[in-house]
């Protein structure tokens, strides 16, 4: 029997607190933090229950009447659970970080309100059961992230907000055009395992046009090359925003969408038959290389991490757009690994900015001595990004490499490896100068017992340990890799 209330309750577990937080006055710091953490914990528990249920094979679906021809469907299958668990865990960690980071700043009620709304829409995107529901939450994500980008209220924050809107809204228009085209062709497009467009496979031109539109729309959020301009600019947002949103929620929503479209809307065979897989792989490959090269040229730490995100997310798209189980597993598991590693890096960048007011890479000399734990976390994240075991990045690169060869596309392996070298090129100098170079002038010692507030330090270390564990114990059943293997063999078998 399908359980109908659980998916909705997961969604509400961050929507309702969000709305309540909006109403809280600025001074009620304690209640707000309590509400935040309570919401995060309930979400974690609910996700865990649902994960266990799906693991046992139970069905979860909430169907609400919306339009005559299309309903609002929230369905939890193993793929959506992968994304939900990632978001739930990382949101919990980022909330703690944000509480610490924004200590003493103003408008925090507004910040945490939009923060919860943003995660609610991410949950919605993950749980969406058909294309229309997906689009609704996709748009709500744009709306709830815009105020976070311009939270600081400075002129360049507003400029960044402008750029962000210009990209995301035009992307949304493309996506809407694609969704409508599909709806006129095949009616309500539900996400079904082997793709829902079997019946209309004959209309090849419309299907290709719709696919291109959908990829354009989703490409903006995935920051594929021509459409990535907003990501580095959005780095002007406060650290928790750029950590959770631009490294995890927003960017992943795009990649998640692309996977849904390829596997659950079109079906891998149809996409392969239409011949659009190869161009997508090429775009992803170009993004990987472009992102890495641009990251090399960035002096600002957060901008360098932003471009690294651009190239890392393209791995997911690459994995998904190669025809084969190994590459799919690689792509999907990278969805989780990249999230955890990148959030560690952003937390570290946030810590450096918050504690030592250091923003540029050149100012990071000898920071290892002053903030050893943060720099250790940064090193773990950096090694993971390069793809060096035992950190999680290695596992996804391993599967991607195998998948590329399995699909007889050796040039992809070359792309993967050059990108790993480039990653090393822009991460290792930072690690070297942090650990082995003496600072220009001695850092003033930290006032408290720890190098930085515990609220900021614990999340950073936790995510670093997580990325290490995800890599080291990848073989385990409940590890992200285990879950992805189960999911691929259950749902995305080509």
């Amino acid at each position, binding site marked *: 029997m399908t359980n109908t209330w659980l998916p909705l309750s997961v969604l509400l577990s961050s929507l309702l607190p969000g709305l309540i937080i909006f109403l809280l006055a600025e001074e009620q710091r304690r209640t707000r933090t309590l509400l935040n953490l309570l919401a995060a914990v309930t979400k974690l528990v609910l996700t865990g229950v649902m994960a266990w249920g799906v693991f046992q094979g139970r069905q979860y679906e909430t169907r609400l009447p919306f339009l005559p021809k299309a309903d609002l469907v929230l369905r939890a299958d193993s793929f959506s659970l992968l994304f939900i668990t990632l978001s739930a865990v990382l949101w919990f960690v980022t909330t703690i970080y944000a509480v610490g980071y924004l200590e003493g700043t103003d408008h925090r009620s507004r910040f945490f309100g939009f923060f919860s709304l943003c995660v609610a829409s991410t949950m919605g995107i993950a749980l969406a059961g058909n294309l229309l529901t997906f689009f609704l939450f996709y748009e709500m994500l744009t709306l709830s992230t815009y105020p976070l980008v311009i939270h600081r209220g400075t002129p360049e924050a507003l400029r960044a907000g402008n750029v962000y809107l210009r990209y995301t809204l035009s992307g949304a228009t493309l996506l809407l055009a694609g969704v409508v085209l599909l709806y006129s062709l095949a009616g309500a497009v539900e996400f079904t395992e082997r793709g829902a467009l079997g019946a209309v496979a004959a209309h090849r031109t419309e299907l290709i046009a719709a696919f291109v539109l959908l990829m354009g729309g989703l490409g903006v959020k995935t920051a594929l090359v021509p459409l990535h301009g907003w990501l580095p600019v959005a780095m002007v947002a406060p650290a928790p925003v750029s950590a959770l949103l631009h490294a995890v929620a927003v960017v992943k929503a795009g990649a998640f969408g692309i996977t849904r479209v390829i596997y659950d809307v079109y079906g891998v065979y149809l996409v392969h038959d239409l011949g659009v897989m190869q161009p997508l792989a090429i775009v992803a490959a170009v993004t990987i290389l472009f992102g890495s090269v641009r990251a090399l*040229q960035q002096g600002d730490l957060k901008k360098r991490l932003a471009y690294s995100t651009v190239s890392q997310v393209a791995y997911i798209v690459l994995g998904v757009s190669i025809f084969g189980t190994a590459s799919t597993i690689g792509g999907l598991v990278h969805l989780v690994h990249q999230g955890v590693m990148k959030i560690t890096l952003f937390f570290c960048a946030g810590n450096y900015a918050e504690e030592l007011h250091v923003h540029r890479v050149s100012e990071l000399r000898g920071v290892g001595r002053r903030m050893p734990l943060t720099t250790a976390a940064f090193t773990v994240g950096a090694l993971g990004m390069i793809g060096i075991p035992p950190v999680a990045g290695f596992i996804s690169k*391993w599967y991607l*490499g*195998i998948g590329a*060869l399995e699909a007889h596309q050796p040039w992809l392996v070359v792309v993967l490896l050059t990108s790993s070298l480039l990653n090393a090129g822009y991460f290792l100098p930072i690690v*070297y100068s942090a650990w082995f170079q*003496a600072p220009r002038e001695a850092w003033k010692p930290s006032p408290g017992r720890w190098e930085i507030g515990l609220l900021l330090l614990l999340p950073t270390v936790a995510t670093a340990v997580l990325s290490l564990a995800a890599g*080291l114990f990848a*073989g385990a059943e409940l590890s992200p890799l285990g879950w992805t293997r189960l999911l691929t063999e259950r749902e995305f078998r080509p």
Partner: protein
Amino acid sequence: MRADEWASLAVIGTLLVPCVLTGMVMLPLTRRVGMALAPWAALPALGLGLGTGATVHWKSVLLGMQLYAPDEVTRTYLLFTGVLWLFSGLFARGYLREDAHLASFWGFFLATLTGNVGAVLARDVASFYLFFAMMTFCAYGLVVHERTEAAARAGRVYIVMALLGEVLLLAAFFLLVGTRVNLSFDDVPRVVAESSHRDVICVLILVGFGVKVGAILLHMWLPLAHPVAPAPGSAVLSGTIIKVGVLGWLRFLPLGHASLPTLGTVCVAAGLTAAFYGVAVGLTQREAKTVLAYSSISQMGFLTLAVGLALGAPEAAPVLIGAVLVYAVHHALAKGLLFLGTGLLPATGRRGWRGVLVLVGLTWCALEIAGAPLTSGALAKLSLKSAEAAAHASEALPTLLSLAAVGSTLIMARFLECTVPKAPEQGKAGAGGMLLSWGLLLAVDTVLLFWPPVGRDELPHLLAPKYMVSAAWPVLVGGLVAAVVWRSRRWRTWRVPVLPAGDVLWPLMRVLWPGWRLLTTGADREEEEQAETAARLQGGFARFRKASLDEVENAEARLSRLSHVGLALLLFLGVFILLLVR
């Protein structure tokens, strides 16, 4: 606890003891205890080398980690790795007592040890890669320990080349593993032999591990890295870490399963050129440790030669592998002793019984490296020659080997000539601990001569006159030439051409460096310049937008004149009815 439980516990202990100690050294509160125990971290590995363990299979770690298989290669590697790491650790305790970055040294020392031991124990591809990478990156810490500019440059070269090697290895592993995701070493050679990309895999493996071994044209980092590292560090680097490269070859290449004649000959040629090239450049070097580094390159040439032969003649593979093992053990210990000696000599000074003991020990090890009779070197060379004979390689090979032996004698003489005069008269106090560990290592080295873990059947031939002569003459000739050169230089100042360490690297750098600068333009450019180009773009766009909007504005103004509205109304009515009329 039954026997096999003890055995698997031993294996786990071997790996986890150094790992845990690394953790303890990193955490400030357990740092003191960790540093005290650090030197003894290699003991479990040595114990396992002597005894036997049981394969351990952790399904959930990484991609299904398997540790330890009781084959000869693993046991030998464990043995000499354990010995060298143990005594280097003990030596380092004395050597680095008042060093500024002691904690970081011990941290990196233990981490590299974990990687090294792990690499030896690993029985599946993924775990091997994990420990191999861990060893490579943590060795970097040893290289840049001195925090000098030269150390930094050497470290950078080391890391770049190591990364390039690892990338090639990764490509090889992808080709090798295919959809099986992970593969145990039991069936790796068979899979490589049968795989459709066999040649590509072998080339990648050879070049990938060649970087670590220091094969020709991949050796540039070695002469830079070893000298900058502290004595125990460079001893371990040159002793065991290079050998892991050879281990990689032994594990991954289909020795004995497939015959690749072309690749074999290329390897043999590379080995020989490395042997002679190492000696040639080594002789021009000033600094003792650099000379030793070049001597390692030439010695590794021999191993490359052996592997090449094994590739060419699969039926002779087991014998050749045996020879390689013997040679590896011999070279590890001898080179370790030499490096530690260079660190020990300034502490003990030339005078007094300590100085004499060290000098004697150093000459003994030099003789070993040169392959003088009645030394482990002779044994190694003998086993190498007999294996090559088994692989019925070309006849010229033994003579070439002897010529190479001459070269190594020359380079050893060069080494002694560089270290002995520079050593101070009187040593410093407290060198006792270092001397003791050095002495013990020397003892173990000599003992291994008589009771070598591998290659015991060649032992009786050692004394055979025929072989004694063939081992002795190259050493004598080498010694004679060295003496002549040494004395003649005293009269005529005959300049020896000075080559910078890392020889081929610098022309290569002149080519690559501008490329890298181009790639990272703007990294240091401040924020403003980028903003200015964006500003110009925005300006243009804003002007265009303003112009178009003004256009629309006065169109609206014109339209709102009263008569125009009337006209619009009538036109609308007329056109509408016109369209309606059918």
